[in-house]
């Protein structure tokens, strides 16, 4: 996952650096949870005050992999309008679905990679599940702004973006309340440090089943 993240981060920063904006800003976000524990897999989104920039002509194709009966990465922020591939690296089939409003879909049982990647054209949170493997849980955060980043294990995310006025928010799957934190209006400079304290709910997940046997709760 780190590798993907790194690649993505490089790609994004490369793109941004090749953009028209000459000055690059940086938002370094620190996301802390209960008891000062850093929060990973939090998505920090910065939306320019003037509105998000136009979408690239050719949409990007992101990957939401299924490895060892898990969604990898667990949280994947993408730009709205991107395509997402769902390769299946497992030797078992998966039936990926989501009932989330931004994208309600169901990929029938498949192995390998389904033929066409999916277009996520609405911003929002898309929760992914597998019909066969109840514990499989994945999040695709469709951001309307291209300026987003996911926190690492240390709870830190860096967003390179042109300086300006932004509204920055954080999203985490276990975020209590509406799921989104309050926005912060931030004047992004070359290095803006932001921090969030999040109150997180407990994650309710189905336990991974052993090879044979019934599912049971905690």
């Amino acid at each position: 996952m780190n590798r993907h993240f790194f690649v993505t981060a490089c790609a994004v920063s490369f793109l941004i650096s090749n953009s028209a904006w000459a000055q690059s800003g940086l938002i370094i976000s620190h996301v802390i949870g209960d008891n000062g524990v850093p929060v990973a897999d939090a998505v920090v989104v910065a939306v320019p005050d003037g509105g998000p920039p136009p979408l690239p002509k050719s949409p990007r194709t992101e990957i939401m992999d299924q490895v060892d009966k898990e969604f990898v990465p667990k949280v994947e922020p993408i730009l709205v309008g991107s395509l997402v591939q769902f390769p299946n690296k497992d030797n078992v089939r998966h039936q990926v679905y989501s009932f989330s409003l931004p994208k309600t879909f169901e990929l029938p049982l498949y192995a390998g990679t389904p033929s066409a990647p999916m277009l996520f054209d609405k911003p929002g949170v898309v929760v992914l599940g597998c019909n066969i493997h109840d514990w499989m849980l994945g999040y695709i955060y469709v951001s309307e702004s291209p300026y987003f980043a996911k926190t690492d294990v240390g709870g830190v995310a860096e967003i390179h973006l042109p300086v300006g006025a932004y509204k920055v928010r954080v999203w985490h799957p276990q975020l209590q309340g509406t799921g989104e934190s309050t926005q912060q209006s931030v004047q992004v400079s070359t290095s803006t440090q932001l921090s969030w304290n999040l109150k997180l709910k407990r994650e309710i997940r189905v336990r991974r089943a052993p090879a044979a046997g019934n599912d049971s709760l905690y």
Partner: protein
Amino acid sequence: MIHWRPYPQSLRAQIIIFFGVLFIAVQGVALLLVDAANTRNARDQSKQELAVGERVFRDLLNRNNAELTQAAELLARDFAFREAVATHDLPTLASVLANHGSRIHADLAQLVSPEGQFIADSMRVHGTDAQFPFSWLMQEAEERGNATGLVILEGRAYQLVLVPVLAPTPIAWAVFGVSIDDRTARELQKLSELDVSFLTRGTDSRWSVLASTIPLSQQQELVEEFSSHSDATTQGSAMILGGTEYETLIRHLDHAGEAPILAVQQRSLDDALKPFKPLHRILIVLALISVAASVVGSILIGRSITRPLLALGQMTERIEEGGYSQPVAISGADEIVQLARRFNVMRDGIATREREILRLAYGDTLTGLPNRARFREQLETAIRSAQDSTTPVTVLVVNLDRFSYINETLGHAAGDEVLKHVAARLTALLSGGDIVARLGGDEFAVLLVGVGTDQGVRAAAKVADALESPIVVGPQSLDVRASIGIAGYPAHGIDAETLLRHADAAMSLAKHSKQGVLTYDPRLRQRREEQLSLLSELRHAMEANELRLAYQPKVDLATGAVTEVEALMRWWHPTKGPISPGMFIPFAEQTGFIKTVTAWAIAHAAAQCAHWRLQGLSLCVSINISAQDLLNPALTSIVADAVTRYGLPPRQLCLEITESGVMQDPARAIEVLAALQASGVGLSIDDFGTGYSSLSYVKHLAVNELKIDRSFITNLATDEKDRAIVLSTIELAHHLGLKVVAEGVENQETLDVLKELGCDSVQGFLFTRALDPGALVVWINERRVRPALTAF
């Protein structure tokens, strides 16, 4: 008056009652103990079963919950369901809920948002935006992943299960509920074998039954129980519903803060006691049987004891009455039989002893003959049967003559032998129902049945014949004679006593008159009676001076003077007047009273003699003495006393004894006479010529005088033979130096002859009868004065 005795005295009743009561008591106690133990057992068992059942119940509840949860989860995982929920397709949701709910037989299906708001509800009770009422369930579900709980909804109990609808994150809670109703309770009962009732208390604080397996009436009682006892809800133990006792366990199934839901699990004691019921019945039957058996057994045993006892009792009655013949035949227990045997032995012993006693009582040991008592008995029996059949009965009393002589001479052993011989001879004469008995001493009796007096005389003659031949005892050959008296029924008496007495009297008379055999004369009785009374009167007479001596003078033929007088007894009876000696002297002799009379006579005569001497009249006074007197050892001293006392010169007092009196015991007579003479008295032989004396005896008799018996004197004047006898007697006497007195001179002729023959003195009515002393003196004086009056 009826005495009610609290305790029966009969052995049989005691045995029956005792054993009956004992068995009843034992069985009763056993039953009670068994019952108590069973009940305790049943209770304990019920408690145990209750505990076990309770665990089963709990297990069942948990399993039901688990199944329900599982089913619910399965439902909640259904993709279509999740899709419907996720897409908020409410109509679809409702039907899906209903459909899926019915799949798992849920009575209610609801969908609740994660915030607790109803999304859908099959009960349609809650309006939209209503809040799920059991937030604690949701909290638990959030923590644990699912939750179950028992809740009250709309007055009914539901087992609710909350499962998350994951898509894949929880998007809703699916709530399924199964109502707890009687069917549920019954299913629980089937598996746990416990009666279960679910109760709740509503907002009005009244308990109500949600579901139950017990009958309706008992449910009401249960409600009342809880209503009245607030602590009943917390404690479980024994409860009585509808008359049945239940072991109870109460479990709170509700969630804290919610309406109380109680699961009242009960185990009826009756059910627990059911398997014991047959045992109980069997025990009762056994008890009844054993009591009956004991009663019957004790009756039989009692009978086996009391019947022999009664038989033995009857036997003792018979023995008491004298019936020894029948042995008692008793069967039964060993002890009883042994006792009966001992009884029989005892009975035999008693019979033997009684026979022995009878034998001794009724038998004469020496001769083996029946004794007097037995004879009396037999006689009475014979008389009784004679009364019925008018056959005569005759009694002979046989008395051996001079038996004492044999005893004294030859000894008692010889005497016994003689008696035995006599007994044998008498017995040999018997025939038919005749009996010979020994009355005692030397006296026998013979009972002749069917024999009249004449025949009796002949029988007596036979007896006398039987004794004719001498009885040989050792070297001695003895002539034994008997005097026999005869008395017959009914002529001489109508009872045994009288017959015996009269026969005895006849025998006595026969003996004294030496007649051998005499039949009783009724006149004897009179005489005997007279004589009996006479005896006592005689005694009285002696004391009362009714006895007198009268004196008859003896006149000397040569001189005509009176120098001697004979004292004769006179009895002046106050009422009967003068009683002649012939009336009482023989009787006195028979009874031995003569000795007393003679002693009296001697004393009085001596006194009179002394008195006359004082008056200047010297007369020799003669007193008659009997053979008994002669044999009386005291005679000599009596005479000597009299002589000494009155100071009589020798020969002033004289004793006259008849010749036959002497001859009774001549040897002795000689001795006594010699002694008497030595003591200074004169002696005369009276009634000489009639006493069968041998002259050799006469030679030795120390007498002074012979008195010729009047039988020779009466006809002396005319009878030549008398004259010859008298003459020779006078000569004999004179030659022996004895004086001769003639008695019974009544006429002058006789007197002349006597004078001619040389008699010394005379005595008789010619001169005077016996006179009183005073009269005698007068007579003597007159004779002196006028001697011519008396012929000479």
